[in-house]
Every structure is written in structure tokens, then in C-alpha cells.
């Protein structure tokens, strides 16, 4: 008996060791990627890099201002489209989980989440770019908005579902009309969860290249015109990294570094929001 218990303890310890090892192992690739990009990219970042436009082939220097502005404009436009629509759909799904409409739209959200981003790009190309006859930042934004939707919908739905019914009843019993119950009680109480979903969805699409390839296309100029082609960080990285010029490779590393820092910051903000703003029920 004694010996068997000894054996069991050894097995338990081996098991513990294995899971600790793998938990540690998964952090290694991230750290290596992080360090490598910092090493290659951080040195490229200076004022001129952030404010300049790409230099013509053969000249050294040049910056990524066109891509910074472009990514900002397109993600902002995508957010303006996706956040209200996604929140409304999420509210509906959490409020009426058993209706037919909820079943089908929930199914659609799942499918949408699984659609490869390049397919979204092609679809928007046929919807917008072809009829309008030009690549445009607007079509890029729509493609990004489609990518954001499932994340915003699901996070809104899941957050609101966790709120107790008693909260809604408290408001309803005071004679508060339904729309005010949702807007003034349910949504504010689930605000942290919804907001973290939104920041996560932004972090997700800001690095998307594929949906922008046939939509926003890219442009060497700083522009905020939604009707014209526009550059974006991931697209700039893609074109520069696949170019034959050493100088452009360096720009791509710098842009990667900026993009990575941005996504990292957004993720940290999300974590802080969920911790600080979480409402004690």
C-alpha cells in the first residue's frame, strides 16, 4: 500500500511537471517573435519614419505616414459601422435567445466568424469595388467591419447574458420602458465586457491584410478620402517585405514593430478595462 501511494505521488508530480512545461513552452514563441521584431524594427522608428511618406525606389529613408493614417481612418470607419450594428444584434440575441430569428442569426454569426478573411475581401470586391469602378478606403472599411461584427456581437451577447434577470426586473418594476431598461441599465452594467470585445475586435482587424488586398488596395500618399485607394499598415508590410529592396525591408520591419506595439497596447487596455470597470454584481 505504502509503495503504491509513493508511485501515485510520483505520477502526479510527473503530470504536474508536464503541464507546467507546456504552459511555459507556449510563451516562448511569443517572446521570440516579440524580441526579433523589436530588434529588427525598433531601430527604424524615428520622427521621419512616422511622419514621412515612402521614398521613391533608389532613395533611402522615407516613412509610413500614409499607412498610419490609412489604418486609422479605415479602422475608425469600420468601427463606426460595426459597433452599433454588432451591439444591436448582440442585444437582440441575449434578449430573445429562443426565437427563430435568434437561431438563424446566431448560426450566421458562427459562420461569419469562420469565413476566411480573403473571402470577405473578394466578396466586398464584387459588392463595392466593381460597381463603383475603383478601389477605395470605404470598401476596405466595410470588409474590416464584416470581420469585426462576429466578435462585437458575441461579446455583447455573452456579457449581457451573464447579467441577472433581477436587474432588469428591478428597472421594469419601476415603470421604466423597455428601451430605457436596455440602454440605461443592461448595457451600462455590461459595459466593461462589451468594450473589451470592441477593443479585441479592433486589435484583430488592424492586422488584417487579406480583406484589404482587393478593396483598399494601397496608396503612396497620405489621404483620408474614403472614395480613394488607401494604404494600411499590414498592406504596407506585405508590399515592402515582398519587394527586392533592402531599404524597403527595413521599413517593413519598422511598420511591423509599430503594428505589434499597437496590438499589444490594445490587448493590455482590454485587460485593464475588464479589471477596473467590471461592475460588482
Amino acid at each position, binding site marked *: 500500500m505504502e509503495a503504491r501511494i509513493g508511485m501515485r505521488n510520483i505520477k502526479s508530480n510527473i503530470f504536474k511537471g508536464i503541464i507546467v512545461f507546456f504552459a511555459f513552452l507556449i510563451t516562448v514563441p511569443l517572446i521570440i517573435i516579440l524580441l526579433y521584431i523589436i530588434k529588427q524594427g525598433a531601430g527604424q522608428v524615428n520622427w521621419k519614419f512616422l511622419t514621412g511618406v515612402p521614398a521613391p525606389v533608389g532613395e533611402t529613408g522615407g516613412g509610413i505616414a500614409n499607412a498610419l493614417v490609412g489604418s486609422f481612418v479605415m479602422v475608425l470607419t469600420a468601427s463606426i459601422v460595426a459597433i452599433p450594428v454588432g451591439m444591436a444584434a448582440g442585444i437582440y440575441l441575449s434578449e430573445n435567445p429562443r426565437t427563430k430569428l435568434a437561431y438563424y442569426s446566431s448560426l450566421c454569426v458562427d459562420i461569419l466568424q469562420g469565413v476566411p478573411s480573403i473571402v470577405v475581401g473578394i466578396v466586398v470586391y464584387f459588392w463595392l469595388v466593381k460597381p463603383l469602378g475603383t478601389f477605395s478606403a470605404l470598401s476596405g472599411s466595410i470588409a474590416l467591419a464584416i470581420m469585426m461584427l462576429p466578435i462585437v456581437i458575441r461579446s455583447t451577447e455573452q456579457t449581457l447574458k451573464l447579467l441577472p434577470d433581477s436587474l432588469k426586473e428591478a428597472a421594469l418594476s419601476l415603470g421604466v420602458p423597455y428601451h*430605457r431598461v436596455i440602454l*440605461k441599465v443592461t448595457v451600462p*452594467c455590461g459595459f466593461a465586457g462589451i468594450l473589451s470585445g470592441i477593443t479585441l475586435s479592433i486589435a484583430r482587424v488592424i492586422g488584417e491584410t487579406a480583406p484589404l488586398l482587393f478593396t483598399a488596395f494601397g496608396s503612396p500618399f497620405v489621404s483620408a478620402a474614403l472614395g480613394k485607394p488607401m494604404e494600411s499598415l499590414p498592406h504596407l508590410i506585405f508590399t515592402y517585405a515582398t519587394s527586392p529592396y533592402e531599404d524597403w525591408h527595413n521599413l517593413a520591419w519598422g511598420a511591423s514593430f509599430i503594428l505589434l506595439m499597437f496590438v499589444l497596447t490594445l490587448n493590455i487596455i482590454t485587460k485593464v478595462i475588464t479589471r477596473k470597470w467590471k*461592475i460588482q*454584481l
Partner: protein
Amino acid sequence: MENTIVKAENYNSYFGDNHVVKDVNISINKHEVIAVMGPSGCGKTTFLRGINRMHELIPGATSTGKILLDGENVYDMNAIYVRAKIGMVFQRPNPFPNLSIYENVVAGYLLNGIKVSKADKDVIVEKSLTSAALWKEVKDSLHKKGTFLSGGQQQRLCIARAIAMQPELILFDEPTSALDPISTSSVEALFHELKANYTLIIVTHNMQQAARVSDRTAFFYMGELVEFDDTKQMFTNPSDQRTQNYITGRFS
């Protein structure tokens, strides 16, 4: 007759095909404390939620018959108006977690978008919290979140929130079943004071509580209103065998 505040006439409630409240007729006077007791699933809570039209919010829930509030059928009135006029306190304290204590008391005004001046709000808050016997405990922390209070304090905050809307009638759905004995006694003590200004209907499955706090008691069994009488009479000399069985603990 003009002393009657709530009157149910042939009132029935259903969840889908499930007939939960059966043909209830009852008449409740102003400034009375009414206890509604009965075993679990007897329809007492459903009846209570029919009075301020909270029952119909559950999908599939319907009702027939009349509930007269001051002589007017609540089912002919706007549901939102009915709910604003009748206060309700729930089983579990449910202060709004995103609002401060102060805002929770005036939540009925804030959430309905009714404009009230700061001075009036201050008066409402102090008066309601005083009536709910909570003012002394929270007057220095009015701007903290309501959820920092203890369970009993939270429940009294919910009572203050109901009082702030100046209802004539307040419904209590097992208001102490989630509270510890000390908080329970503080809430029960409050019932005696509220009686002067309000009519209270208290659903409880605790017989001792019904005996302690109420003037008259209604006994529900299997969806029927079996007996409705003076509390003393009911507990000492019930007229129905089923009431007798219930209060002597022959079934629960």
C-alpha cells in the same frame, strides 16, 4: 368600499397551458399589511406579479379577470404606468450595480428620464432612506455604489427605491428569504412603520413571519385562494381543513 385599494375579480394566471392562479377574488384595504402564504408553487408569487403586471413579461404568461387598483382595472391601463404606481421589492436585493446609493434611491426618476431638481432629489433621497430606516447608516456614503452595502441594507435600499416613487401600494416577493436573521428582523420592523403610509402585500413562505407582521393573511394552495382572514383568526382557528393542515405542518 372606498377604503379598498386592490381588488381581484375572477383573476386567473397561466404559464402557457399551466393554470397557476385559479379564479382568485380578494379585496385589500388601505394601510393594511397583507401576508400571502402557501407552499412553494402555490401561485402566490404569480398572483403578486399579476397585480403590477410583471407576470406578463415572462414569455408565454397570460392572465384573465380583473385587478382593480383604486377601482380601475390595471389591465386597461398602460403597463408602464401601473408599474410606476405600484412599488415592488424582490426576493434577492437588486440595487443597480452601476449606480450609487443616492442614484439608486432616485432610480425611478433617473431611468424614466423624469427631470427633478437637485434640491428636490436631495429631499426625496433623505425622506425615502429615512422611511426605509437606512438614512443613519448610509448618510455619509451616499455616493458609494449600492452594492457595497450588506444584504439587509441592500434590501432596505430597494425598499427606499420603491418608496421614492410615492406609491400607495408596495408588493414584497419573499423579501427576507435571502437575508440573515438580523437583517430579516430589521426589514420586518420596517413593515410596521411603513403601514402608516402604505399598503403592503408580502408574499412569504415563512408562517412565523406572516403571523408576526401582517394584519390579514391570505392562504394559497394549488393556485386557489383557500382562506383570507384576520391573521390571528387564521392562525388560531382556521376555517378550512387545508389551512389547518398547512399551519400545523402536515404538509409544506
